[in-house]
């Protein structure tokens, strides 16, 4: 059966060149970077080279890059680290309603510790309004954390504008840029961020490795203890092969970004057009300020998980904001924050294109989906088409 992977926002297939870069560090150059012998020095060099690659890709300095086990850890470190380090200055944090749980839940946990958190709402496209951020600032505010691009609906936030506001008010600004890297330009100075999180497996790198950019001079409290690795910000034996993979992956992902993004946009727009041709569907997320590979539509009268299962049976890997796919009872907090009603949120379908996808993939999805929709709608007690047929 044809396999069409359209879940690149969840994770991506590792680039062959990334694997090739990692392999020697998985097999031969296995030293611990903390060791002073040749095996250790070789590993240390690999780690520092990768740090330079990451820094170069972000327009940062190598010493501003801290390797973590992924973006979840990077987000936790950034937000908790600043909150704790700055708690004498104030106790107010600002974030948005559509952040990843690694940001939202960290803020909620801090709220239990006595911090006050303002969760700025988003518009119908899932976008944060810089004016709303500015309006939320109090004299107690110490940190603003707003994501660069949303993982579910692909909406790109005006981060540079928010960064400008934060600078004006002398606030530390963090951005979860996980979905941006490799898809849109990410430069820490242009975006005016002080902290920025990323995760390699979202841009054709390995799982289990990420990084936090920490602008020099920005002090973080640590809450993991152990060795002196990563200037004590992230103790533990460095995951050398994965760090090497991250370095290579970000280099590759940013080197041909424009061309790849342009290619993805064409596929994306064809896919969106085809999906919206199906009766009672709607696009979720911003029509233009949107990640080049993100497609998110709601298909009325159908629940997302049954749609995913049906697509999977046809070889198509997709995702949904349906509650039944998240382990929670409510559908995606992102879709709800955008004002979708429950039915529309439950019926969301996310197809995220990546570098491997072709026009044939898009055509295939557009070929198999209508039948699936029809079948599921025929089963649905809320589909009005059923009643029409009955009468």
């Amino acid at each position: 059966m044809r396999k069409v992977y359209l879940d690149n926002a969840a994770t991506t297939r590792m680039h062959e060149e990334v694997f090739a870069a990692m392999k020697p560090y998985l097999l031969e150059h296995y030293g611990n970077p903390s060791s002073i012998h040749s095996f250790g020095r070789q590993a240390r060099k690999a780690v520092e080279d990768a740090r330079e690659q990451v820094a170069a890709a972000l327009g940062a300095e190598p010493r501003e890059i801290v390797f973590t086990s992924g973006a979840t850890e990077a987000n936790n470190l950034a937000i908790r680290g600043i909150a704790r380090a700055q708690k004498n200055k104030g106790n107010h944090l600002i974030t948005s309603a559509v952040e990843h749980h690694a940001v939202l839940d960290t803020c909620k946990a801090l709220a239990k510790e006595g911090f006050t958190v303002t969760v700025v709402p988003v518009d119908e496209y899932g976008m944060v309004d810089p004016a709303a951020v500015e309006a939320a600032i109090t004299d107690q505010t110490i940190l603003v954390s707003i994501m660069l691009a949303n993982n579910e609906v692909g909406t790109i936030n005006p981060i540079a504008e928010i960064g400008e506001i934060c600078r004006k008010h002398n606030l530390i600004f963090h951005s979860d840029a996980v979905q941006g890297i490799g898809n849109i330009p990410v430069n820490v100075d242009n975006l005016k961020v002080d902290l920025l999180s990323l995760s390699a497996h979202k841009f054709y790198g390995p799982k289990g490795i990420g990084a936090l950019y920490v602008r020099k001079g920005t002090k973080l409290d640590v809450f993991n203890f152990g060795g002196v690795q990563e200037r004590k910000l992230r103790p533990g034996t460095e995951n050398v092969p994965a760090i090497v993979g991250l370095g290579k992956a970000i280099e590759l992902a940013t080197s041909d970004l424009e061309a790849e993004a342009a290619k993805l946009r064409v596929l994306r727009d064809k896919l969106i057009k085809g999906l919206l041709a199906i009766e009672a569907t709607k696009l979720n997320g911003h029509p233009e300020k949107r990640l080049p590979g993100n497609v998110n539509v709601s298909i009325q009268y159908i629940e997302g998980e049954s749609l995913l299962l049906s697509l999977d049976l046809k070889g198509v890997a997709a995702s949904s904001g349906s509650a039944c796919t998240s382990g929670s009872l409510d559908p995606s907090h992102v879709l709800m924050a955008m004002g979708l009603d429950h039915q529309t949120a439950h019926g969301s379908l996310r197809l995220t294109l990546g570098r491997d996808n072709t026009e044939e993939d898009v055509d295939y999805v557009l070929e198999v989906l209508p039948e699936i929709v029809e079948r599921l709608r025929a089963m649905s007690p809320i589909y009005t088409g059923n009643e029409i047929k009955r009468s």
Partner: protein
Amino acid sequence: MYTEKVMDHFTNPRNVGEIENADGIGEVGNMKCGDIMRIYLKVNEDDIIEDIKFRTFGCGAAIATSSAITEMVKGKTIAEAWEISNIQVAEELGGLPPSKMHCSNLAADALKNALRDLEEKRAAQKTE
């Protein structure tokens, strides 16, 4: 994630549809949690469930449990149908993922609502 039996019922659901002039109709669920099941019953003079149909909006588990219960009930008596529990439906399917045991496994509740509806309708008929 799902057993083969679940996937079989999901892929080839039995007894999808509606029954015109059903003797009993039962619904459970709501849009908030994303599962709505409706069951239609046709019962003969001997209190045997002659026909049963369902429509479900919901995840794979919701559709499979709806389908499975229609098979379990067809040909049974009303009294027997009252005995069927959600757990039995899950067992019939070879188990469900833990997260699916609650919301998505409401088929027996839908059936009970349909049986109640049936009895209410009968009671109404008698008093007519």
